[in-house]
């Protein structure tokens, strides 16, 4: 359901071109739990962002759910991302001006869901991640573990087909990290595919398949 073929990605920094991916090929089946591992700067996060339609490839083909998305316009990409993909970031990336439930409801806002339904679904999701009582709190009033659980709730609220997590436990203690991974794996029970970028062997060990990225290329299994 995810297919990357001959994908390259080159960033420009002034006049300098920095290649992040140099022809990556990868297939991930629906419902699979995959860990992307490799040294820093290998291109793991870039690969993840390409799958999440957050980046456009310089060349090559990216297909999601059987559809070539390499050349989709911004509106179509945003539409697809908002309805089918949930993101979890290392730095949580909650919006500080919004309360916990408002952060969770954010993706629904762009799906033109009514405010009442937004709040109902956000509160239900917060209850599922064990933070119902923290719904009215701002991110600054939450612990790191709680912030990441809110971020997971935000990723899950759309019932995603694909969950992408970039070092989701990187900023957490081991107990909080385990709780977050448990929550992410729960998503799979709803049929979602889970792709996790990690440096942590313990996190990688929980995946069904470990994909190694080195120097912008995917190593054969």
């Amino acid at each position: 359901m995810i297919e990357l073929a001959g994908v390259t990605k080159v960033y420009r920094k002034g006049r300098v071109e920095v290649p992040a991916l140099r022809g990556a090929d990868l297939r991930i089946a629906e419902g699979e739990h995959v860990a992307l591992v490799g040294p820093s700067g290998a291109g793991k996060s870039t690969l993840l962002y390409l799958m999440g339609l957050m980046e456009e490839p310089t060349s090559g083909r990216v297909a999601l759910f059987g559809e070539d998305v390499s050349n989709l316009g911004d509106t179509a990409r945003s539409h697809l991302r908002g309805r089918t993909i949930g993101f979890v970031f290392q730095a949580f990336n909650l919006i500080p001006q919004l309360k916990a439930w408002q952060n969770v409801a954010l993706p629904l806002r762009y799906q033109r869901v009514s405010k009442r339904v937004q709040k109902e679904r956000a509160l239900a999701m917060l209850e599922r991640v064990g933070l119902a009582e923290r719904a009215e709190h701002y991110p600054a009033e939450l612990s790191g573990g709680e912030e990441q659980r809110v971020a997971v709730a935000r990723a899950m609220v759309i019932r995603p087909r694909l969950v992408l997590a970039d070092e989701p436990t990187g900023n957490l203690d081991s107990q909080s990290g385990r709780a977050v991974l448990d929550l992410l794996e729960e998503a799979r029970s709803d049929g979602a595919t889970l792709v996790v970028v990690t440096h942590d062997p313990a996190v990688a060990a929980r995946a069904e398949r470990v994909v190694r990225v080195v120097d912008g290329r995917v190593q054969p299994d």
Partner: protein
Amino acid sequence: MQSRRMKLQPVLSLASVALAAALLLVALASYQHAQARLRWLVEVAGKNVLIVQKDDAPGTIVPPGDDLSSFVARLPGYLRYALRAEGGRRPNAFDYYTQYVSEGYFSLRGYRFLKGHPLRQDADEAVVGFGLRDLLGKWVTVKGRRVRVVGVLASMADRGWPDSAVEEVIFLPWRLRRGAPAFFFEFASEPEARAALAPVQGWLKAHGYSNYEALPLANLYGLELRRKLRNVLGGALLWGVLAVVLVAAASLTAFRLARALERIRELGIRRAVGAARRDVLREELAASAAWTAWGLGLGWPLALALAGWFEARTGLSARPTAAATLTAAVGLLALSLAAAYFPARWAARQPPAGAVRGLAASLPQKRLGLAMLGLTLGVAAFAVQLGVNRSAEEHTRRMVGDLSSRTAVYSSFLFVGARSVTDPRGVTPLTYADYEALLASPLAGRIAALAYVEAYLTPLSGPAGRAYAYLRAYEDPYPKLAGAHLLAGRWPEPGVHEAVVGRLLAERLFGANDPLGKTLQALGRSWKIVGVYRGAGEALPGNAASDQLLVLRRDLGGTLPGARGEILVQLRSEAPAGTFEAVGRFLTGRHADPKLAPVRPFTRNDLAPEVRAVLLELAAAYRLLAVVILLLAGAGLAAQTLMIARLETRTLGVLRAVGGSRARVFAELLWPLLAAALLAGAVGTAAGAAVSFLVVHAQEATWSLPWAQLLFVTFAAPLLAAVFAAPPAWQAASVPPAAAMRSE
């Protein structure tokens, strides 16, 4: 700390928008009120009216009568006419100054009534000017006839000297008239009045009325110069308001960009959870519109308070009208949407993957330049106003004479200024003996320069035409004190009967021919023209107007009959206050006749006070507007510095961590701002000077720049930057390194 900042930020944003709304409202309202004042300056001039009157030449002639009125009535656009004859104040020195007027005269001249009603032509009734308002309802004897005062005119002192003279006049019915009539013909429009001028002049010539002249009534009010003044002042004000709008736009844009930069990660998150570019754009614009609406709501009472303060200091109203409010609302909404659009568009176009990591492309490096844009525009606006204001001042000087602020004129016969013109007593005849006595008095120690001049009305004739003009026989340094500038040739030498001729008189007498070396006959002598000069516009006391002839008094061989003596006094800079009045008392005391009016000093502030009043009001308004502009630019700069410091907190932390002192970090933050501000000052001054040249040139006015002030403005920009940017820079440099390093 973070939540406190979160709560404070909306309050600060709202306060900024409210302040911008209030300033915009006040600027627009003051512009609107000033435009009305400038329009008034031109409207009172009776521009649709032609006057036909006897010229200054002596002698009794048969005046035109109904045949002229019948002729003019057939001209296109003719509406009506009225008549007036001067009654003077003789034979009784204590009698009132009188004018005989026909039906409809008051309404044609636009003279409003304070109380009562116009006089009936068939009754023994009179109307008086504002200064004689106590006579209302009383019977008075005028010209040996008892009349009852039935109406009082509203004060017209602020309409200019042609009307201020009416303040103490008593108007009598036309049937009692003595003397030659003046005709006032009103037309439907100014072009029709102008078009009628040539036919009327032709009719007068064809019918032998050589002592009668026809001219637009507006000429008596200096309409063209008033128009030029209105255009130049109005242009300066418009540029001032535009500058406020531009500076506000630049500051708002820079502010929105900084805000977008600060929120780049948040926008990235929104994009990550499914927001398309257009969603981000729409949200940003909607937020901006909402801020504007709130800002306008809060800005209104602030604008009222500011308008009160503004009016108290300038005399010019700035109270927001409905039209100004509507314009400000629409303008501010458009401004804030435009200011929000480009930063929002830029932010929405950032790749979400980079944005969620707080990375943004290229534009952040340009933020310093954007921050300086507001300051550059502010300095440019300041320079424009300095240039245009200088030009307007020079126009005013041309209009009302070129007397310096330390110069006063004492005249035997003053025909400006309500009190002396219409004082029912006679006036003191000033003579050369008075001048000599003043020179010998203790007051001479306070006087830097003293000049005596005698004016004679005399016929002159040249190859291109004839004229009745004033010949001024002077003692040096009269030309210098009166502001006469030599255009060609030289000033007269004593003992050889030489003269200098005014530019306008030279054109009238000699046409295109060179007058230098030619001779003119006047006062029984032959005068050789050795120079041409340019003088002030109007034949006011003390002015060496351009339609006169100047000769040395000693060449006359003494005072001749018909002389009007004038003494010009220029005080030393250290002369105590009240010296002008002391000179007046000295001259009055020399004649010691209680029947005569006291001798009063006339300074430039007594000449065309209504024009000066408008100029002073607007000059004060410009200064305040310029201060507002610079403050707006400075506030924008402070906000930018704060944003820059906040965005670079981690960098500052690194600098502190590797050993940079607070002062060093502060200097590193401030130095580029000061350098950029100096550049902004120079660029703004140059741009402002260029624009002021274009504005003044478009009005065919003379352009000159106050260079010293401009230089000050150029260096004021970095000073302003230092004042506004130093506090936030110092605050940023004072953050503990550990806290700065933890900052995201």
